[in-house]
């Protein structure tokens, strides 16, 4: 193997290590990952956009596809974390908000009762978005946001 090839391979491995390290770091630092069906035309979301989706203020993706938000069961730990990170309020406040919104004609987010069922739902349903805990294998979905957000180094 020539020295040029060795340098090329070494550079490639270094780059791969950096990319893997960044990805690994993201997953380690995120308590909650916001995932979406890979068919949507968005690559990332802000917390404000995520809040708008879960408050029924943003209902379609930029390509016109209907957003189908998925929530976790009311007493789950991850729902409490999600509610605190996104809305800065306890999960009861969001439940209360939705109970009232139902009387204004809005349909509340669907409930999935585990990370795996939320993941499967998002993999299969176009336009779906959900949140899962760290450590969930993220196959066939897009990660749009990691919560809490990594602080700039």
């Amino acid at each position, binding site marked *: 193997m020539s020295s040029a090839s060795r340098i090329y391979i070494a550079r490639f491995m270094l780059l791969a290590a950096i990319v893997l390290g960044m990805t690994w770091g993201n997953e380690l630092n995120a308590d909650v990952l916001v995932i979406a069906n890979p068919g949507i035309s968005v690559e990332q979301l802000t917390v*404000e956009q995520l809040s708008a989706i879960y408050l029924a203020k943003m209902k379609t993706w930029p390509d016109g596809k209907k957003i189908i938000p998925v929530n976790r069961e009311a007493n789950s730990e991850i729902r409490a974390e999600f509610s605190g990170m996104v809305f800065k309020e306890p999960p009861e406040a*969001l439940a*209360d908000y939705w*109970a009232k919104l*139902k*009387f204004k004609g809005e349909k*509340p987010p669907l409930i*999935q009762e585990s990370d795996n069922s939320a993941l499967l739902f998002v993999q299969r349903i176009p336009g779906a978005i959900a949140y899962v805990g760290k450590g969930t294998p993220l196959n066939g979905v897009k990660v749009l946001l990691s919560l809490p957000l990594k602080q700039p180094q």
Partner: protein
Amino acid sequence: MKIHGSPGSKGYFRLLTAISMACMVFCRSAQAYDFGDGYDLGNFHFSGYSNIELEFPHHGNDALSLDELSLFAAGKFNRYFNPFLEVEVTKAAAWEGGRGLQFDQSHLELEWLYNDFEFTENDTLRIGKMLTPVGEWNRIHAEPLVWTTIRPVSTYYSFSEFTSGLSYRRQSASTPGLNWEIYTQPGGELLRKPDGLQKNYHDVVGVNVDYSLNLSEKFGISGQYAKVDETGEEQRLLSIDGQFPWKQLKLEFQATAANISGGRPSMRAHDNEWGGYLQLVHNFYGHWNVVGRAEYFQAREYQESNRNALIGLVYRPSPAVAYKFQYLSNHGAKLDMASGFYGSIALLF
């Protein structure tokens, strides 16, 4: 919710009860169901609520009643077809001291029947019958979602509770944000309630603006012009309302003022009808809350004002379930209020 009552024997109670019970059983069997989740069937979402109420007034008969049984269906199809229907049986069954079990006070009410045209994500044209956006209480008012068994007079007495016509709502794309709505009812009310304490209105036009700071903090202002069917009066109303949580406290208020003209001035005691309430809820332990409220209301028909104060306990194990036990002290004009103890169990399903 104790605000009025009117007799009229009907058999639809059994039908609505059966549907509601089936919905509750169906919902309970569904995976990961919690009260208030409702049930999704295709493009429709079904839900409802029930309220069992106990009354122990100082003067009058004690009573236990299935006060409200409501069922609603919300359809989401596309931008132009999003129907919503809510029907409610009030006083479906009641046991009254000295009279025994009663079924003759029940009546069916059409609360909502409309279709939404969503021009954009934030612009909605609504056509049909809807609850009028004057204050948050009138728009929501389902027993599991409010803190007291007795509704404040200021939240319904001076304006048209329902609008049968059209409204245009502009909703803020984010929170905090400003939302506004204009509405009109060109004629009378569609399938109006049986006669009770509330007046009937026609030629209604109004506007509501509210500013939401977050999920539970908001401030609203409403204006409404309407003509009263029964008296021929014209009225112009202004209302403000707000909800402000602070730590374990929740402050809530609404104040209304209406100027009345026309009709027969000699038939009313005042040309201005006004009042307001201030309510404080304190979460003192787990799901236990103490609620206190004071209200003053000067109705157009009475020389004397209505002054009432309420204190009570509310146990809310979830936002969809509420157990209430409260004491109301009423002075001056009655306005369908009576001093005494009141309790209720309300459930959103």
